Structure formats: structure tokens, C-alpha cells
């Protein structure tokens, strides 16, 4: 810092405000860390610019000036280990409301990609730079206005850890219907859909590959009693291979799920692509097929087709009479 004293045309003994210099000096020292009066005096006594301009009230007067300028500085006390603590200052470059809205727009557009790892990184980054926002309402937007705000990061870490080593867990799940319940669950992967995070895996209770909403998981504990893995073997056999074709905007906007592969692209034909899916959760897969509407044609998987037809019949039924209020 003192090197700057030697800059051209900047003679510290001429044309500078030493009182102002002292105010800045103390501000910069307190920005580094809390300091006691004695420590500040020691630092000042070593500084070539102000070492000779120190009266007994210098520190108090300067601290008062800092406070009057808008700083929040706690008084030295036993609780603060006799140190001045700078809790807030108004001298930082700051992000405006418009800046925050721009950052939020970017976050909202990235949410649609479903890349939950990116979203977590982005949320952490926004939380880190939130200190540059002075308006507390807009600071809160950066800190909390995202779809993963109710999710405990430790839960995600544990789920990913167990998924990585293919270990079984007991998860405490807060079900909207049954309240808290412990489920034997083998996590495999996490997806993000419709602004919500889901963990997919084998659930012993339902004896099928299913998903749980991560924000409803309250705890994850490792277990090892399923070492023989009989249930898993049986479950592996229950996968259904299905092929389907897509046309129209559904084909153009198509994004593969983790269990899908594009077998063929045929841009010159009515159906633009053929997709193969290894279906381990029929309910979820039929949901997906329905959302493509008549753009999707199932080529194989009679079991799925039958279930789809039943679902369509049940849906039609509710529209056969006047709306239920």
C-alpha cells in the first residue's frame, strides 16, 4: 500500500488530507479483520504518512467519522475481544435493482435446461455476490428466489454418494398423503423437471423403479442388509424396452431422458426420429408419451400401449359430463 506514496506527483507531505488518509487507513484495516484500538495505533505508528500525526483522540474521532459516513462498527467490548468490528460499510461498488433483475432472468432461463448441477453452482455464486446488493429486497431475490431453495444440499450430496457406490439407503420421506415414512431406497440418479428435483431409484415398498421429490426427503441413512440383492435382480428383469416415433414440434424440441437413446433421425420423413426407451417406471413413461400428444407413435411395448389406452379412457370419462366444481 505504501508503495503508492512514491508515485509521480504524489508527495504524501503535500496536497493530501492526512485526516482523510487516516480515515481510509482505519477503514481498510477494519475491512481486513476486526482490530483493537491498540492494534490500530500500532499500524498507524508504522505508516510513514500519518505516524507523526496522532493525538489521543485520533482513533475515536476517526471511528465516529466512519460511523457518520454510514458504517456500522460495533464497540470494543469483552464480547468482541476488545476489537472494533466493521459490520457494514457503504463504500463498495454495488449491484443495482436492474442488475439483479438481469441475473434473475438468466437464472430463470437456465432453469428450463434442467441442468441441476449448473443451477446449484449458480445459486451458490449468486449467494456469494448478494453482498454487493444494498437493497435487501433485491438481495433476497439473489439469495432465495430459485426452485431449489427448500432443498438441503447435504441430502443431495448423500444421495449422489450412495448412487455412485450403488448402496442401499433408508430415506425419511415426508409424503403428502402419509406424512413422514422410512423407505428402503437405492438411489441411481437425480433429474430436474418442472422446476423440481427428483431422485430416481429402486423403492422396496413399491418393488419398482420410482422417483421421490428431493425437497420431501428429510434424511438419508446408509444400510447394508440388502447385500444379497434379490429384489434388485427381480427388479432388473422388469424393465420394458419400448420404441416410439416422433413428429412435429415434439421432434424438434425433443430432449432425451436418461433412459432413452435416439435410434434414428429421418428429417425428410413425417416422423423425424425413432427413440428407444428402457422403461423402468411405466407411470412416468406414459406421462411422457401423453405429453407428446398425437406427435408420438408407440411402435412396440403392448403392455405400455394397453395401459395408455386405459388411462385415455379414464380421462375421457371425466369429460363426458358437466364439470365437477
Amino acid at each position, binding site marked *: *500500500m505504501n508503495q*503508492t506514496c512514491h*508515485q509521480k506527483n*504524489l508527495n504524501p507531505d503535500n*496536497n*493530501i*488530507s492526512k485526516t*482523510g*488518509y487516516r480515515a*481510509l*487507513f482505519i477503514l481498510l484495516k477494519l475491512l481486513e479483520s476486526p482490530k483493537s484500538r491498540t492494534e490500530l495505533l500500532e499500524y498507524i505508528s508504522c505508516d510513514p504518512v500519518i505516524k507523526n500525526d496522532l493525538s489521543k*483522540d485520533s482513533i*475515536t*474521532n*476517526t471511528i*465516529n*467519522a*466512519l*460511523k*457518520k*459516513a*454510514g*458504517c*456500522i462498527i460495533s464497540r470494543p467490548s469483552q464480547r468482541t475481544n476488545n476489537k472494533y468490528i466493521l459490520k*457494514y460499510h457503504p*463504500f*463498495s*461498488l*454495488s449491484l443495482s435493482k436492474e*442488475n439483479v*433483475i*438481469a*441475473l434473475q*432472468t*438468466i437464472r430463470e*432461463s437456465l432453469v*428450463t*435446461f434442467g*441442468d441441476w448441477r449448473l443451477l446449484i*453452482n449458480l445459486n451458490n*455464486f449468486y449467494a*456469494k455476490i448478494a453482498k*454487493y446488493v444494498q437493497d435487501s429486497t433485491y438481495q433476497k431475490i439473489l439469495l432465495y428466489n430459485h426452485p431449489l431453495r427448500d432443498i438441503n444440499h447435504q441430502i443431495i450430496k448423500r444421495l449422489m454418494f450412495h448412487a455412485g457406490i450403488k448402496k442401499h439407503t433408508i430415506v425419511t420421506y415426508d409424503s403428502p398423503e402419509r406424512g413422514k415414512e422410512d423407505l428402503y431406497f437405492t438411489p441411481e440418479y437425480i433429474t430436474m423437471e*418442472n*422446476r423440481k428435483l427428483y431422485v430416481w431409484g429402486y423403492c422396496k415398498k413399491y418393488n419398482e423403479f420410482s422417483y421421490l421429490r428431493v425437497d420431501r426427503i428429510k434424511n438419508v441413512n446408509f444400510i447394508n442388509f440388502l447385500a444379497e440383492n434379490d429384489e434388485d435382480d427381480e427388479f432388473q428383469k422388469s424393465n420394458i424396452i419400448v420404441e416410439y416415433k416422433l413428429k412435429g*414440434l415434439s421432434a*424438434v424440441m425433443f*430432449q432425451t431422458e436418461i433412459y432413452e437413446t435416439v435410434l434414428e433421425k429421418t428429417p425428410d420423413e413425417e416422423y423425424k426420429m425413432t427413440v428407444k426407451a428402457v422403461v423402468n417406471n411405466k407411470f412416468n413413461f406414459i406421462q411422457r408419451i*401423453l405429453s407428446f*400428444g*398425437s406427435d408420438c407413435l408407440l411402435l412396440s411395448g403392448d403392455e405400455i400401449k394397453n395401459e395408455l*389406452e386405459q*388411462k*385415455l379412457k379414464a*380421462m*375421457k370419462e*371425466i*369429460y363426458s359430463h358437466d*364439470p365437477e*366444481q
Partner: protein
Amino acid sequence: MTQNNNKTCSKEKKIANSGLRLLEMLKALSKGPMSSYELLEILEEKDQKIYRKELITKYLNTLKVIGLQVSKTKGKYFLERNIEKTSFNKSELSLIKFIEKYTKNLNLEYLSENISIILNILEKSFSQDTLELISQSNIREYRLKKNLSLKNQEVKKYENYCRESLKIDLIYKTDGNEKTEYYKLEPLQVMYKNGQPVLIAYDCQNSTYKEFVLKFIKEAHQTPQKNARNYVGPVTFKLKNRLAKSYVLKQNEKIINSGKNFIIVSNQKEDTQLLIRRLSRYFDQCEILYPQELRQNMLDYISEIENLYG
């Protein structure tokens, strides 16, 4: 916060006034570039005194001597580095690069301007160890799995259409290929979905909201007709049983009625075709109540799928 401090300070009275003036000047510079005249005016207004302009030179010198670099451009002084420093690791720096490139690709003017200001402030706030990290390592931007495909000028064009609030005639490739349809629209907003720029507009002929993927718009012409903003009412739908308990409302939705095993949701401004697709995922646990036309659309949607396998 400042008021409380003032109270405390007024009791103690002893203040380093020259220090306070310099701090006020630093505060002003932290808000943005300032001319020496503007800085002088701020100090004079605070103290209700007249100062000589040499005072500003003296204070600027003081800032420089202590190491706060101040530069001048177009007659205005600004801080080269932020007083509040932050350390960023490699992954955060990679994210900063990503945000910069992503925004550039989005090509929305107001976003680019704001992100440029934000990145400038962050760069000024890099701690010494962050600056060293940047100089020593090759920071690569975070890579999205799905690439953005954009026609930059097109995005700007539709952004302007939305801003100018005039109706547009639009020809849209409904299947992303040869088949086209004509629309008379009130353009409302350009958004990005799955990396694709999308125009959200009000379809004047069908009285519905619609989304148009920009790359499938064949032609668009602005008309002299003003947006009427005479939009349709909400869509209401009923969700039952477990779904009623677990459903997370979208930004454009609210619950207008609820019972033991159901909720009734009011949805505003969603593309009705996309809404039907979304609600179809809830099978018979969801029923569109209003408008009647949309109930019929849902029935048609179901019948079209049934016909594929009939």
C-alpha cells in the same frame, strides 16, 4: 441504519470532519463515475458550505496515496478497484465466463448491458488470490450439454416488436417444416426455453396465449394496429387426491378453491396447447373446468391419441 449511527455520533460529537468529507466522496464514487464538479457539489450540499475545487484534487490525491486507484475518463473520475474484495475459485470463474457468453448468445439488449456492468463490478472486486489464479490458470467456461442455436438479429427484432406493442402478422411452421399457419398476434415477451428463444404472444383470432419458437417463424410483419390488451380470462382446472396435495403452483397460477381432496387452480397467460400437454400428464386426476372450449380441446387431444392405436 445511518440514522441510528447519527444518533450515536451526535452524543460523542468529536468527529474527524476532513475524514468524513473524504469518506463521503468515496461513497459517491462507489455509486458511479463523477466529475470533480459533481463531487464538490455533494460535499457542499452535505456541509452547507462553499469549498474550493482544489479540495477535490487534494482528496483524489489522498485516495491514490493510500492505494485506491482512481482514473478519469470523459471528464469523470471512477474507482479502478472495488474496496470490497471477494475470492472466487476456478469453478466460480468458469461460471462467470459462462454467464458472459450465455448472455452474449441470448442477445437481449437490456441483459447484455446489465451483465456487462455486473461483470465489470465483479472484476474490480477480485481479490489478489483470484487475480493470481486467473493469471496462472486457463479458466474455461462452464459448458452446457445443450447448445444454444440462435439467430441474433431475429431475437432483437421480436424484442422490439414486444416493446413497441403493435400487433404483428406471423406465418409459423407448425411442424417445424413445410406446414404453415397464419396468426394475428399481440407480441408480449421473448423468453428462452431449453436454450431456444421463444416469442410469447396473444393470438387475437383464437383468443389464447401462444408460444412460438423463433426459428420456426417463416415470416413476421409489424402492423400499425396497437395491442388491444383485451386478453381472455384464466383457465381453471381441478386437481384431485394426492396431486392436489403435492402440486406446486407455477408463477402464473393461484388456488381459487380447495376441499379435502381437491384444489381448483386458476392459470393465466399460459399457451393453452402447452397447458393441455402439461395437464394430460396428470391423467384422470386433473379436469379442466373452464373455459368449455378448452375442455373440448382436451377431449380432441385424447381422441387424436386414441385414434393412433384404434
